[in-house]
C-alpha cells in the first residue's frame, strides 16, 4: 500500500478536511475545525440531506449491534469509527450486553487521539490506529489481539467506510482477508453511499467535496456491494436503503430522504 518504511510517521495536516471530523459536524458535533466545517457547508449546500444520512447510518449501526447482541455476539470490530461522539458501538453494545468488547479502528490520527481520550478507563473498548487498505495491519494490531478472540464470533462493522475505497484498492479482497480471520457465526455490517441523490448535479457536488478530503467518496449500487458479502449469508431484508434495514418504527418522510442515499446490508458467516 505504501512505500514508506514502517517507522516513517504519518503526517498530520490540519489544513485538510478530515472525513471523520466532517461527519462529526453533520451529526451536530463540534469536534471539528473550520476547514472541516467549510467542507461540510459546501457539501450541505449541494446535498442538504447529508446529516440525515449520517443519522440514518448511526441508526442502522445501532440496530445491527442489537442484532449481533441478540445472536450472542459479544465482540465488535468497528473499522472507520471516526470521532466518537454519541451512540457509539461500545455504548450500544455494552448497554445491551455488559462486558461486550469493542475495538475501534481509524486511520485519522486526530480521531485516534480523541478516541483514546474518550475510551480512557473503559477496559473493554480500545482504538487501533490502522488503515482498512492494509487489513493485516488491523488483524495483527496489538490492541486487536489484546481485546478480541478470533476463535469466537465477531461483529465486523464497516459503517460508511467502504465507499472510500476505490476499486483499485480491491475492496472485495480486503474484506475477504478480514472475513477469513473471522470465526463461524461472525457478522458483518456494511453501509455504503449510493447513487440515489435528488439530482445528478447534487451527487456530483457531494462527491467533489469528498474529493477534496484525503479520501474521496464512491457511490456503489446494491449489485456492486454483493461481492463484498462473498462467504457471508446476507440476512433479510438484504442490501437495502439504510432506513429499510429492520426499522424499529414506521418510516417517515425524513427516513425516505435519507434512505435514498445509503445502503445497508448484514451478512452471517457460516
Amino acid at each position, binding site marked *: 500500500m505504501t512505500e514508506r518504511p514502517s*517507522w*516513517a*510517521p*504519518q*503526517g*498530520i495536516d*490540519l489544513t485538510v478536511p478530515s472525513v471523520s*471530523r466532517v461527519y462529526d459536524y*453533520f*451529526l*451536530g*458535533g*463540534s*469536534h*471539528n*475545525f473550520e476547514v472541516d466545517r467549510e467542507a461540510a457547508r459546501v457539501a450541505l449546500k449541494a446535498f442538504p440531506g447529508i*446529516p440525515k444520512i*449520517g*443519522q440514518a447510518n*448511526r*441508526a442502522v449501526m*445501532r440496530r445491527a449491534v442489537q442484532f449481533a447482541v441478540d445472536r450472542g455476539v459479544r465482540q465488535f470490530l468497528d473499522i472507520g469509527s471516526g*470521532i466518537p461522539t*454519541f*451512540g457509539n458501538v461500545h455504548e*450500544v453494545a455494552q448497554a445491551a450486553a455488559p462486558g461486550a468488547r469493542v475495538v475501534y479502528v481509524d486511520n485519522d*490520527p*486526530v*480521531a*485516534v*487521539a*480523541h478516541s*483514546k*481520550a*474518550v475510551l480512557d478507563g473503559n477496559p473493554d473498548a480500545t482504538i487501533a490506529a490502522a488503515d482498512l487498505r492494509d487489513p493485516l495491519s488491523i488483524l495483527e494490531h496489538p490492541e486487536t489481539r489484546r481485546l478480541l478472540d478470533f476463535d469466537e464470533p465477531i461483529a465486523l462493522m464497516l459503517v460508511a467506510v467502504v465507499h472510500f475505497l476505490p476499486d483499485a484498492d480491491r475492496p472485495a479482497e480486503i474484506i475477504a482477508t478480514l472475513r477469513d480471520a473471522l470465526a463461524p457465526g461472525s457478522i458483518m455490517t456494511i453501509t455504503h453511499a449510493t447513487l440515489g441523490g435528488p439530482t445528478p448535479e447534487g451527487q456530483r457536488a457531494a462527491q467533489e467535496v469528498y474529493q477534496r478530503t484525503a479520501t474521496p467518496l464512491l457511490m456503489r449500487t446494491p449489485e456492486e456491494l454483493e461481492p463484498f458479502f462473498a462467504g457471508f449469508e446476507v440476512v433479510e431484508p438484504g442490501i437495502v436503503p439504510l432506513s429499510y434495514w429492520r426499522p*424499529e*418504527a414506521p418510516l*417517515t418522510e*425524513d427516513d425516505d430522504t435519507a434512505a435514498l442515499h445509503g445502503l445497508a446490508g448484514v451478512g452471517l458467516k457460516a
Partner: protein
Amino acid sequence: MNTGPAGAWGGAGHRPEQDEQLNLRRFVTIWCRAIYSVTATSMTRGEFEAHLIPQARILHEALRAERFDPRPAAAVGAALVDAHCTDPEALPSILGVIDAYLVLYCPPDPDVSADEARIRCSRLQHAVAVGFSQALRERTLVEQESISRAALGAQAEAERALAASEAKFRAVFEGAAVGIGIADMDGNVTEINQAAARMFGGEAHIRRRNVRDWVHPENDPGTRGLNGELVRGERDGYHIEKAYARADGSVLWANLQVSLLRDAAGDPQYQLALLEDITERRGLLQRLRHQATHDALTGLPNRALFFERLDQALDPEGPTTRIGLCYLDLDGFKTVNDSLGHAVGDRLLVDVAERLQDCITSPDQLVARIGGDEFVALYTDPPGLTAVTDLATRILEALAAPVTLEERDLRVHGSIGIVHGPVGSRGAADVLRSADITMYRAKELGGNRYEVADPDADARAITRHGLTNRLPGALERGEFFVEYQPLIGLENGAVLGAEALVRWGHPVHGVLGPDQFIPLAESTGQIVPLGRWVLEQAARQARDWHREHPGADHPPRVNVNLSPIQLHHRDLVSEIAAVLDETGLPPGALCLEVTESALIGADEDALKPLRRIADLGVAIALDDFGTGYSNLSSLRWLPLSVLKLDRAFTRGMRRHPADPVDMKIVEGIVSLAHSLDLTVTVEGVETRAQAEHLRALGCDHGQGWYYARPGPPEALHRLSLADAG
C-alpha cells in the same frame, strides 16, 4: 380516545391525574414531532419521545407552581442539548411548541390568569433558551477543547514519531557503510555521512566543492552529461563507476548511484548520492585482469590478450582496416634452455622481452609472448608493409647484440614471419597460422631474417601443417613403417646391424621422414606410442635376423632412437624389458640412441631410467655427439657404450686432403672414447675417402649413403649376404 385538547377538558369519566398525564403525553408527542427531525440523536422516535416526558413535566411543574420560578426550565434546554438537539433550527422548534401548546395541554392552576399563564410561558421559554444556549456553549467549548487536545496529542505523537524516525534515519545515515551525500539542485553539498567523509579523506574536502566540479581524468567522457540531465529533471537517477580525487590526491573509485529527491508536488528538491568505495576491488580486478592477460615471466601481454586484440582488430565492424603481424621464433633458444638450464633460458627470455618492448614505437603496436620462445608483434593500421618490415628489422637488430648471462655471451637470433593486409574475411587463427608458416620459411632459409607471407609459400608450408591434423590416428591406420640403415664395421666392412628409422606413408604427401613429423609427435605426445611401436618393430626385426644368422660371431644388432620425451616417460624401462621378453632378443643386440641435448643437464634422477636400461644389458648410444655444448666430463658418468659423431665432423673429410682440424678433432674424440671404453660410430659417411679417413682415425663403425641408404629389412639381408659373399 380523544386526541385534541377538547377531550382533555371534557372527559368526565377520567380522574384529573390521568387526564393530566394524557395531556402531557399529547404535548410531548407534538413536541417530539417538531424536534425529532432536527436532532442528530441516535435514539428512536419512541425513545426520544420518552426522553422528552420528564422535560415536559418540568415545564408543567414550573408553569403551575404557586410561586412561579422559571429557572428549572433552563435544565430542559440543557437536556435537549444533551439529546443532540444542537441544530440551530432546533431551538425555534423547541420554543415554538412550548409557546403554542404548553399552556393548552399543561395548564397552570385555575387561579392563574390567562395573561399570567402567557407571561409564565414566555419566561419559561426564555429560561429554556438560556439553558439551551449555556449547554450548547459548554458542549461546544468542551468538544472544541477535546478535539484540539486530540489534534495536539496526535500532532505531538506524529512529531515524536517523526523525531524517532529522524533519529533512526540519522543513525542509518551516519552508520551506513556506504557513503551518502545530499546536494541541492545547484550542486551544493548539504549533507554527507561519515563513510563518505572517510572515503574522500575529509569532510571539508567534499564540502568545498560543487557536485559539478568532481571531474577526474580517469572518468569516461560519456558520463559527463549525466548530472546535467539529472538536474534538468531529464532523468531520475544514474548508476556509474566514477573516479574522484581524494584529499591526498589519490584516486577513489566509487560505485555511484545518484537519485533525484522530489517534493510532494513532484518538483526536484535534492540529489542523493550513494557511494560504495570500489577502489580496492577495482585494483584487484585490474591486477587479476593483468595477471590473466600478461605473461608472468616477461610481463608482456600473453596469448589471451594478444588474441583478444587480434580479434578486435580483425572485427569487420571495428575501426581497424589493416593489420601487420610479426611472428617471432627464437633460433637456438631450445639449445640454450637444454644446455644451460631453464633458469638461464628464462632470464634470456626476459632480456629478449625487454628488447622487443623497446622496439615498440607507438601505441598501435603490441608485443606479446604467446609460447615458450614465440613472440608476436601486432601492428594495428600500419601505414604500409614497409612500416611492418621496419618493425621486424628493429626486432632483428635488437636481438643482434649477444645477451650476457653468467658472464657468457649468448647469441639469440630470431626468425620472423610477417603477415600484412586488410582485415576482412580472415580469422585470428588463420592469420596466426599464416604467420607461423612464414616464420618457418624464414627459419628454413637460415633464420635471423624475416619473410613476408604470400599465398603460394603458405600453400607449400600448409602441407606440413596439415600433418598435425592427421598425425593422431596415423598409427592406428597403419601409416607408419620402419626402414633400416646398415651399420658397417669400418675395419672389415661387415654389416654389424642397422639403425631403425621410422617413416610415415602419408596418403597425400607420400613418404615422410622423421624430421618432418617427429617434432610434431613430440609436441603432441604421439611420440610415446609411436616410439613404442618402432621399438617393437625393430626388436622383432632384429630377432628375425638372429634366427636367419644362427651362430654368427656378431649377431646383427638394431639401433632405435629414443626421444627425450620417451626418456621421461615412466613406463619406458618396463616397456623395453617387456619387448625384450616378448621377442627373446638378447639385450646386447639392442642399442638405444639418445641425443646429447636430452642428457645434458639431466640430474641423477632423470638418468635413473637410462641406467636401469643399461643394467638390462642394452647398449646406449649418445647421438649427434658434438653438435651441442658437449660436456666431455659427462661421458665419464653417463651409462654409455657408444658415441655417435655428428655428420658435421665428416664433412671436411669428403675428399683428399681432408680438413686437418676436423681430422684432429675426430682423432681426439676417438681416443677419448676408447679410453672410456666407448665405441665410436660416425654418421653421414658419403664417400670412400671419408670411410678411409675414419677407419684410419680408429673409428669403429660407419653409417651413410656410401654404404647404403635406409631401406626395407630385406635390403639389409641382401647387403649382408653380399658382404658375406
